[in-house]
């Protein structure tokens, strides 16, 4: 697995730039990852990211947009506003989690 430097730190990422070790994640890193993809974090963004992190900790897999809507209470439409065009990918990228599957 390749390593890269984000927010002055050495972190392990996959070939699309997603963190491969969720424990290397913290909020400073998340803000930097968000900037990389042109997103400025607001409280609304943080609320979604926090849900994804907590959900991953209990479920062991990344929540899909459907789950972020149904369980997290953030409607898919809002996810598209906060993380334009590719919410599933962008949310997991910022949250330092693997891309959700369901895509097979």
């Amino acid at each position, binding site marked *: 697995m390749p390593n890269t430097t984000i927010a002055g730190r050495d972190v392990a*990422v996959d070939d699309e730039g997603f963190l491969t070790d969720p424990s290397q994640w913290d909020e400073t890193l998340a803000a930097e990852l968000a900037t990389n993809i042109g997103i400025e974090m607001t409280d609304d963004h943080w609320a979604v990211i926090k849900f994804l992190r907590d959900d991953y900790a209990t479920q062991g897999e990344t929540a899909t947009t459907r789950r972020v809507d149904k369980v997290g209470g953030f409607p898919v439409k809002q996810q598209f506003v906060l993380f334009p065009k*590719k919410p599933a990918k962008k949310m997991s990228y910022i949250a330092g989690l693997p891309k959700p599957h369901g895509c097979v």
Partner: protein
Amino acid sequence: MKRLLVLGAGTAGTMAVNKLRPRLSVDEWQMTVVEPSDVHRYQPGYLFLPFGAYTPEETFDDTDRYIPEGVERVRGEVDVVKPEENVVELVDGRTLPYDYLIIATGTTPRPDETPGMDDDAVWRKTVHEFYTFEGAMALRDTLADWPGGRLVVHVTEMPIKCPVAPLEFTFLADAFFAEKGMRDKVEIVYATPLEGAFTKPVASSLLGGMLEERSISLEPDFMIERVDSEPAQIVSMDEREVPFDLLVTVPLNMGADFIARSGLGDDLNYVPVDKHTLLSDKYDNIFAIGDASNIPASKAGSVAHFSMDLFPENFIQHINGQPMTHFFDGHANCFIESGRGKGMLIDFNYDTEPLPGKYPLPGVGPFSLLKETEINHLGKLAFRWMYWNMLLKGTELPLPALMSMAGKNTSVLETPVLDSTDKELEAVR
């Protein structure tokens, strides 16, 4: 007497009872399968019905013909499973107790989950689907005298069963209109929630190229919000509007509703199981096989088949209190019809994406992976015979259950990884 109860006699449930009956002593095990339908449907045939390439009769047969002796078939619909009490209740009020339960109730299209999709004004008139027998037949009637216009082929949300089917439909539609001499009167658009034509990178770029060659435009990252009838268009969550004259959609796919009522499912009513053994995460005497489980593999008959080569051995070990040792790898093998008498084949599993090469014999074939050939097309057609005559009855096919890397060309994977940070980020943007 111990009781093994199987729910659903579709592809997976029928294979399971045929494979398990000879392995379980008739004196010790009573086997029952619950299935409401007297006809067993060959769903891969639905792809061909709309174009008149299969007759309706070629896509179904009697359910009971494929249920082996020594297995009781109960004609009924499951209402709820009570896993704490080890009983299943049917809609008609009957109660069936079990010692072991195998859930094989598949997945079905749910047009009512998308606003406007199944409105009377449009449903089966200008908005169609081919994931049910009725749908495929209605679409056949519409296509027979459709004057042309803008055809939008659309996928609502992943996962869907047979994820290549909508692409195949698109290729076949292109060929169908060309043959009728009216391809110039039809504009074809492929709208998908994925970021490309397919899920896995190598296959996706190849299939994307095939759309381009056929002048079919791609509308990626399209997450549908609603279907409008006036003007006729699909609208995405981020307000993109795609107008259509004829919409052929794959509605949201969901597992059976009783799974939710029984507290056994995830948000799409799929049963969470261990992806290598298919044993429920929650109950030690419940398995889910075929499309009904949540394993991260394609929902396909071929996956059900490969997993069923391993499952019976695991099941026997499990009921004897031994650890299960026949680990399933998510092996899938799908023919992709590409039109004009040709087809492609993809072979992959949980960890390895579809790659070019030869199958099943390395270097020999006769099938070519990720390449359009006539032999592949014949393979797809031959599959129907194999389905009725071998697969359902549990006859072993000369194909390995686990995926093999032999015969696959991995050099296509040697694209530079992480050559520049900008490039990776491009993907996320």
